[in-house]
């Protein structure tokens, strides 16, 4: 097509647009996450039992770790939808945060030991249910972030999809903590890890297909 003709067509097609605002996108995601959590409490899937904080030492660790990862990854993911933003350094910070959170699990006491009990500790039937629920619970934030990604213009798709996946997965796991009765760090790292990895892989597959521009 002739260059001038294209310019004319685009100018004729012009309509006012509202520039993308970071705080609006962050607000939308906070709302999505809050509504999801409120619904889980409303239907009885989750319950806020403060007594569990004393009897299950991993509850606090899980809530703080997953909440922190979700918040940092979510905020960085939204920022990465700005074409001029580079998420290189924040991703390194996030990797350090994830590593610290995992290390934190090692210092939690009251864990059954011994290699022979390893398989019993994993409780794979419950574990698979746990991983599946985490993946399902991560869907609302995943959909929200992918839609925001489609509206934005991510230029570093590799990092954007990782951040989207991590944020959604961590939020799914965070929501699941309120209904999870297990307290063994091995069980948690294994099955929470599987559920989160599934969401990360899903984001890796979905985001480039929908948010490519």
């Amino acid at each position, binding site marked *: *097509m002739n*260059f*001038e003709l*294209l*310019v*004319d067509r*685009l*100018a*004729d*097609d*012009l*309509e*006012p*647009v*509202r*520039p*993308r605002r970071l705080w609006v996108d962050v607000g939308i995601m906070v709302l999505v996450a809050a509504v999801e959590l409120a619904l889980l409490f409303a239907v009885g899937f989750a319950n806020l039992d403060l007594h569990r904080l004393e009897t299950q030492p991993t509850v606090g660790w899980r809530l703080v770790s997953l909440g922190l990862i979700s918040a940092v990854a979510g905020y960085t993911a939204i920022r990465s*939808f*700005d*074409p*001029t933003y580079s998420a290189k350094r924040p991703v390194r910070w996030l990797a350090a945060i994830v590593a610290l959170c995992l290390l934190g699990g090692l210092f939690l006491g009251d864990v059954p030991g011994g290699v022979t009990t390893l398989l019993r500790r994993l409780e794979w039937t419950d574990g698979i249910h746990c991983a599946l629920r985490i993946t399902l619970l991560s869907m609302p934030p995943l959909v929200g972030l992918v839609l925001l990604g489609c*509206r*934005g*213009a991510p*230029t570093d798709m590799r990092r954007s999809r990782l951040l989207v996946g991590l944020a959604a997965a961590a939020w799914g796991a965070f929501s699941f903590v309120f209904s999870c009765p297990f307290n063994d760090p091995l069980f948690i790292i294994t099955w929470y890890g599987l559920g989160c990895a599934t969401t990360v892989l899903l984001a890796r597959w979905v985001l480039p297909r929908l948010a490519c*521009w």
Partner: protein
Amino acid sequence: MAEERWRTLMIAAQDGDASAYRRLLLELGPWLRSYYARRLPAAMVDDLAQEVLLTVHAKRHTYDPTKPFGPWIAVIARYKWIDRLRAMKDSLNDELEDEIAAPDNGEAAHCAYTLDALMSRLKPAQANAIRLVKIEGLSVKEAAARLGQTIALVKVNIHRGLRQLSELAQAEHHEF
């Protein structure tokens, strides 16, 4: 200077000012062409510049009016360039299809093969002189320099070589 003007025009465009938008796109055209002229084959430059204009149109809401315009348009141009390079790389790995619509080059290929066969029967000095001057289009002087021969010798080699080629071709024709 241009960047500040483009920023003002873009802000106006986000508000729906079509004439500012038209001016902005027209001014971006030469910049994009010069950007891609240093990075892509000439045949692709205009095509990609137009693609960037379409992207600017679709993603104009992602420009933050509080920030400079230059980095925004530069990152979009770069992103599209990398995208195109990736597509070019992928197309290099495309498998050949059994049926490709292409002109029949059989005759030309047959001629080239026959010529090669005939040239191989000439003396190397004659074949080289003919190849450089009559096929590759070098001047006699350039061919002489490349072959390390005098101009007169190159001319003689071409003359004798062509005469021998003609005789060989006629002999081949009579054999068939």
